[in-house]
């Protein structure tokens, strides 16, 4: 069970190396990295600040990870989320899943991201040319999370 919430940046390669180190029973490693995106033009984002709920965040991410491990045969997994001020191109979130089977590694990583988007207590505030604004939740994120309701595929 590996869950981390931190303001420092992370190194994708180093995190994957730490998880797989010394293991020869893994066949598939999937990583997802979410980054700050700047669409430019009128939607130009100079930076964003991620606020979170210390204590509940860790609890929510641990619950997510336990759900993923119960549904797919994972050898290990990592959920790491940053908070604080971030600029375009910066890393926000990293999910890594390790399994003997590629389908399980892919599905578990996608599930973790979809569920994290609707359950983990983080809020994004963007800095734009017109000032700051809180990012609004998207219905498409609820739909994505709803795909995983019920039994594992």
């Amino acid at each position, binding site marked *: 069970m590996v869950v981390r919430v931190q303001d420092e940046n992370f190194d994708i390669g180093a995190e994957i190396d730490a998880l797989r180190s010394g293991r020869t029973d893994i066949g598939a490693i999937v990583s997802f990295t*979410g980054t700050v995106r700047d669409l430019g033009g009128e939607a130009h984002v100079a930076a964003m600040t*991620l*606020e*979170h*709920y210390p*204590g*509940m965040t860790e*609890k*929510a991410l641990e619950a997510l990870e336990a759900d993923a491990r119960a549904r797919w045969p994972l050898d290990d997994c990592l959920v790491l*989320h940053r908070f604080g001020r971030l600029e375009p191109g910066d890393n*926000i*979130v990293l999910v890594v899943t390790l399994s003997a089977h590629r389908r399980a590694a892919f599905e578990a990583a996608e599930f973790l*991201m979809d569920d*994290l*988007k*609707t*359950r*983990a*207590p*983080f*809020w*994004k*505030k963007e800095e734009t040319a017109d000032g700051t604004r*809180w*990012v*609004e*939740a998207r219905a498409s*994120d609820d739909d994505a999370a709803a795909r995983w309701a019920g039994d594992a595929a």
Partner: protein
Amino acid sequence: MTLLYFAWVREKVGTGSETIDLPDDVRDVAGLIRWLSARDEGYAAAFEKPELIRVAVDQDHAPHDTPVAGAREIAFFPPVTGG
């Protein structure tokens, strides 16, 4: 009881946390939101549309009909936007 506020709820209320003595007639989260809304303009603005408010009771997501008796920490915030 500790109340926590995050994101624009925090900004409108004007504080991130406070300790309150729960009135006897407040039974559930919805009742607590009504009671808070009556305190001043900031709270009224934050809770103007209760359907936009998400709640965690003792760090677990909770619907508005969740009883509040015995809770140590109740948090109010907009829908989450992490990831």
